[in-house]
């Protein structure tokens, strides 16, 4: 019980980071970047390559993250900005970000070959015993990093001028630019942050999955589910809660149902959650919040 809870939270933290990466870029541009998983993959491939070339792990990680940030910013300039310039409310970005994902994935396969490469083991060798459960150092690191990043992001969003700028642009880009906000700069920064989050997610799971050009596809989808369950389309940090819930559910399904159950169980949960609350659970105004308000009328008055 404790075991699947802990390892569920650990893997869920990674899903949550990818979900937040998707949500942060969505927040400012109203675009779902289908290349998010591939951006994560680039960080892993670069780190793996740099490490096998003999660079110290920290330098390799830095290079990987830098690559992810650059690709994310590139995706904005190639696949998002020109499309939104034509029609801000259209759906052309569905095609362009997918096209970008296809390019990145196949370029990686062309460059590195389609096989898996070894990844630095980092903290995977350390195991911590908590009662009957065992947690690797890498898992603990995932949880810590995810919590810190989510907290930091929320603090920046709420309390700094730049964060408020993001909120303003999310609410009404035309109005925000009318009062002098540089919407394009904020969008670039948002994509850079989303690239960083996705890259960090990649570094955290790398020791377990190794580096493979086709990893982006699966993890991109899991990040997407995390965002949708949590309600990250309204509030990026909600994607982290969604990710953790997803991780625990998937690990729980594997332990309690059968070893294949994590393939389909999260999808069933996703469908149920979206039927009950289309805007996700933790977005505020949606399911969880409505339930809380119904149960505790005092909260409503306080707000």
């Amino acid at each position, binding site marked *: 019980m404790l075991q699947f809870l802990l390892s569920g939270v650990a893997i869920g933290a990674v899903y949550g980071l990818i979900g937040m990466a998707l949500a942060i870029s969505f927040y400012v541009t*109203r675009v*779902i970047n*289908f290349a998010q998983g591939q951006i994560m993959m680039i960080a892993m491939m670069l780190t793996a390559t740099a490490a096998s070339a003999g660079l110290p792990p920290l330098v390799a990680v830095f290079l990987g993250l830098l690559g992810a940030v650059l690709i994310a910013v590139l995706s904005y300039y*190639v*696949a998002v900005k*020109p*499309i939104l310039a*034509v*029609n801000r409310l*259209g*759906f*052309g970005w*569905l*095609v*362009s970000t*997918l*096209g*970008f*994902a*296809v*390019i990145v*994935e*196949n*370029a990686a*396969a*062309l460059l590195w070959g389609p096989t898996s490469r070894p990844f630095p083991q980092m903290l995977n060798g350390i195991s911590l015993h908590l009662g009957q459960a065992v947690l690797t150092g890498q898992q603990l690191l995932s949880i810590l990093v995810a919590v810190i990043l989510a907290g930091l992001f929320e603090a920046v969003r709420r309390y700094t001028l730049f964060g408020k700028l993001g909120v303003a642009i999310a609410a009404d880009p035309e109005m925000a630019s009318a009062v002098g906000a540089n919407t394009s700069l904020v969008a670039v920064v948002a994509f850079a942050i989303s690239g960083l989050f996705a890259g960090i997610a990649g570094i955290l799971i790398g020791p377990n999955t190794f580096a493979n050009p086709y990893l982006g596809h699966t993890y991109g*989808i899991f990040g997407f589910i995390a965002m*949708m369950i949590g309600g990250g*389309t309204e509030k990026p940090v909600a994607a982290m809660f969604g990710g953790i819930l997803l991780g625990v559910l998937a690990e729980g399904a594997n332990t309690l149902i059968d070893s*294949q159950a994590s*393939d*389909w169980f999260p*999808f*069933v949960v*996703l*469908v149920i959650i*979206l*039927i009950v609350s*289309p*805007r996700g659970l933790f977005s505020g105004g949606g399911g969880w919040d409505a339930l809380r308000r119904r149960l505790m009328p005092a909260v409503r008055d306080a707000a």
Partner: protein
Amino acid sequence: MSEKLHAMSAAPGLTLSRLRAPRLGLCLLLLAYLLGSWTVARSGLDVQSLVLVAAIFGILAISLDLVAGMLGLYSLGQGGFFGIGAYLTAIAVNDLGASPFLLLPVVLVVSGAAGILIGAMSLRVSGLYFAITTFIFTLVLTVLATDLQITGGTQGLLGPSFPDLPEMLSFLGAPVAWCILLALLLIVALIWSLRRSPLYPVLLAIRDAEPFAEAAGVRTAALKIGVFGISAAMAGLAGWLFSFMGVVSPGQFDWSVSLNILVMLLVGGINTTLGPLLGAAFVSMFPAIVNINPWLQEIIYGALSICAITFFPAGVVGLILRRLQGARSAAHVESEAAPGTAAPPRVARDGAEIAIECRAVDFGYAVGPRVLRKVDLSVRRGHIHGLIGPNGSGKSTLANVIAGRLHPSSGEILMNGRSVHGVSPSGRARLGMRRTFQAAQLVRELSAGQNVSVGLHTQIPHLFRRAPVWPFLPSARADIASLNHRSAEALRAVDAGAWVDRHIADVPHGIEQLTQLAAVCVAAPDIIILDEPATGLSRREVDHLAEILSALKAEGVTMIIIEHQTRFLLPLCDQVTVLNAGEVIVTATADEVRAHPVVRQVYLGEQ
């Protein structure tokens, strides 16, 4: 300026002349298509499968165009419906030994029902969330297909083989080729007809100006769900056809397939007849034509789709059409005197003396102060009732509450003495209440005449049943003629007759207002709500508007008019209600209102 416009004669016959398009050319095209099909059916397997897969994707792209192009619903569920059709056929034929032809109706019903279910579920969330919901639907189906026993996991199933033709018909070639190509022809004909039917402006109105469509009596929700169901059934048909092409496996229906269908549509040209076909041919044949390193090929594909969507957002066909239209709009279409049937006589409802009554209507949003407080209003039959008040006093909100777009938090609205609680805006429109909007809501890519015709769609008998075969119906001619005639007449009556064939995107603001008014009047309603009808009109046009409204009043129409230009409004009104901060200050005749001290203070600005 207006004089010059009058010199140009109105031309209601554009749609009509298109209807008389040379039948010969159409027959030749059909013959060429059949000859082409024959060639494909007799050609080698590799060519055959290339063309047939492209044709199946053509059907899928058209099915997406039906919802994305005409209704603005970007479905990522087409891959899912496609999969339902293919798996259903493969499983039923392999395991139950069912006949493929008997299965076809089952496939259409099941995939169509799935579409209706998804549509009904995701209707409460619109736009992006519709795309996401349908995306998740496809995701879940792929996962199920991969993990279930009955679908054969990642390996998939072997599809059934298509029944052979009898011996004497064997010269026709492969029957499966005929089946697929004829199905494509049927679907193309269906959509082509739909585009020429009066339903088309109605669908575009739902896409671009939903409030306008609702106010014209269109049951937007039902229509969206229904059309999405038909689109899903088409995708199911494509799946049925695809199952005869060999193996049916999860990878052929996953979410990237749904997105690829969207790529086909956007590259070829959304909301065009040929665009989806071109796009499907390009995308599905691309790997076979560019036969290089598979990774490099994918990279080129990705780059091409980004370039296409960036540089030709309207698609290839859209681009060509725009060029052609530019050339054609210079040539003026001659006016055709259509023998229109007269408008049906206005239904004289003698029952209630009070046409509209609001009883203690309260309205407020989730946050902020209440917008309407205990508003009582009664509008007598045949009266013009003015509604004035400073900005933010709740006039438009009250109009929206009466028209059914907003639901009062308490209080009651009565129409002709009966409560209309829970009746939708379109339901109220069908009861004879039409309205205009403060900011004109119209379809920019349609002509003024077509926009007006949306207001008439309830009066075309069996429109939904007839739309898919519209140009082939003899009765359609008379209907189109009368529709065009009445739309043109309505525009002429509001002094905008010269703009009949102009696209709304190209007309000045005042003409948009008048088009809205024409779309309302054409349906001969007995209650009209006008929200700032004089905005953007010239002095002369305002005078004319006053004449039109007086004429309507003489016919016994009841009107509620919101307007800031009191010089125009007050002389028309039998009664005037003044709102301030959501409360009724006074309801009285125009003269009494002018003299009322509080009104002079809050509205006319006197101290």
